[in-house]
């Protein structure tokens, strides 16, 4: 196969991804370095990064937001992965086709995160539908008796919104693996004398691990970078990095855009490092 044909095949998509996306990323990097031509500012410096990481006002905000972002994204990712694993464990040996489950999981993809968050708000807030049912049943007298599930200080609402969204997503991925090769390995293990728990632990989990870890990384990076859900079901403080970046972009003082860009890029960097580490760790696992 001629070399030029290979590059011909890659070229159109690469131009879009590398040309357009890469170009705008370059522009973003320039902005983070203080290149703000609309203000007549063309000098480059690391001031924005300094401000974000160690500035008096932003520094504290950055580290707090980083912690909160990590907490929310890790908790939501781990939570989804564990629930998914639990569900798959409980059904792995009972079913062969998983047709209904995967159809329903698919339909979940139709609801965008933002729409889902709005719905969740209507259902779970202190005056939401559940609270009203609680009131109707006489379990509570006023909204504040209902537990704070959304727009709470600990990000429970954000985490719940994500978990309910990501479990079906991960299920889809896990089911694909199971359908491909799950059953035979479980039968072999059973024939070799492994009891139910051992089969789940020694066979099912390792089988699902590669695809679920891959899917979880996708989920992690998505949650880490998205602002729609925290903007809707989160609170002003503590905030996530994505909302912090957005806030800086919305700041009437246009100089704040450099910091906003710096936050976004640092976020990307962090998630790239996380994924890179996870990838290398998997490779090391596989090779050992």
């Amino acid at each position, binding site marked *: 196969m001629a070399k030029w044909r*290979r590059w011909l*095949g*890659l070229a*159109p*998509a*690469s131009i*879009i*991804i590398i040309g*357009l*996306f*890469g*170009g*705008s*990323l370059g*522009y*973003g990097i320039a*902005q983070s370095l203080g290149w703000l031509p609309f203000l007549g500012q063309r000098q480059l410096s690391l001031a924005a990064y300094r401000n974000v990481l160690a500035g008096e006002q932003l520094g504290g905000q950055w580290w707090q937001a980083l912690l909160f972002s990590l907490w929310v994204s890790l908790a939501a990712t781990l939570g989804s992965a564990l629930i998914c694993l639990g569900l798959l464990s409980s*059904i792995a040996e*009972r*079913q062969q086709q998983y*047709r209904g489950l*995967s*159809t*329903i999981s*698919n*339909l*979940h*993809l*139709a*609801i*965008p995160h*933002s729409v*889902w968050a*709005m*719905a*969740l708000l209507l*259902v779970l807030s202190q*005056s939401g*539908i559940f*609270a*009203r049912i609680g009131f109707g049943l006489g379990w509570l007298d006023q909204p504040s008796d209902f537990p704070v599930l959304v727009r709470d200080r600990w990000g429970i609402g954000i985490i719940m919104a994500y978990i309910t*969204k*990501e*479990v*079906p*997503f991960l299920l889809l991925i896990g089911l*694909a693996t199971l*359908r*491909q090769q799950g059953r035979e390995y479980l039968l072999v293990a059973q024939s070799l004398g492994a009891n139910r728990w051992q089969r789940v632990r020694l066979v099912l989990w390792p089988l699902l691990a590669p695809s679920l870890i891959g899917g979880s990384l996708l989920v992690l*990076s*998505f*949650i880490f*970078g998205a*602002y729609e859900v925290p903007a809707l079901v989160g609170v002003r403080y503590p905030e996530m990095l994505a909302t912090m970046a*957005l806030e800086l972009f919305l700041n009437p003082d246009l100089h704040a855009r450099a910091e*906003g860009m710096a936050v*976004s*890029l640092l976020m*990307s960097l962090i998630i*790239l490092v996380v994924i890179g580490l996870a990838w290398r760790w998997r490779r090391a696992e596989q090779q050992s």
Partner: protein
Amino acid sequence: MSYRIIVWVLALILLVPIAVFLIYAFAQGWFFPALWPERWDSGLFLRQLADPQLRRAFGQSLIIATGVSILALVLGYPAARVLELQTFRGRGLIYGLFFLPTVVPSVATGIGLNIVFLRLGLAGTLFGVMLVHLIPVLPYVVLTLGSSFARYDRNYEQQAAVLGASPWFVFWRVSVPMLLPSLVVAGVLAFLISWSQYVLSLLIGGGKIITLPMLLFAAASGGNQSLIASLSLIFIAPLLILLGLVARYLGSPATGATPRP
């Protein structure tokens, strides 16, 4: 937990937003602790359906998402094919680059993209919006087609060639039908991502191209639940139908679909 219970719980979770939006779309003055709305009014919902701006936005969203799906397949197919069927230096790097847009938040690149598109004269055009949607869409299309190419048996194509089929004939009569489920699923994923795209449409559309999510987000900023619910329903209905149609392909090993979280 039994299989059926899980299926039902997931179905219930899916029904919750739909049911809630259905109620809110027609409810008037439904406040705590009322268990049921005081009054019903379909006026607002019907008005949205009749609203010329909404119809226009729906149409443009439809054109854009369809166009994006086709473009993504046309561009993604050769890329995925080369990436999966050939081994060469830099393959991993290119895969990584294709993956990058899924990691970098769109706010970080959105403004830069807007400037690039403005310079190219593509901002504010339908084509420009389609093009920019390709950035979040292509990674998933390439991943999906790629994983089905990874299982692809080129012997069918070679068998066709030795039977005297020209490369073009082979492409249409062998490759496309062989990959059809995967192509359909990748196309639907592309449609889904494009249809839900807000930030990039807003930036590149520059107000000249108005899509459904822009109306939805504008409504969301106003807090009028009936309006939000009506638009949400109008927004998700086509997606539900589309995903329902391809549900049996999605997530099946045959198509290797990589959906978006």
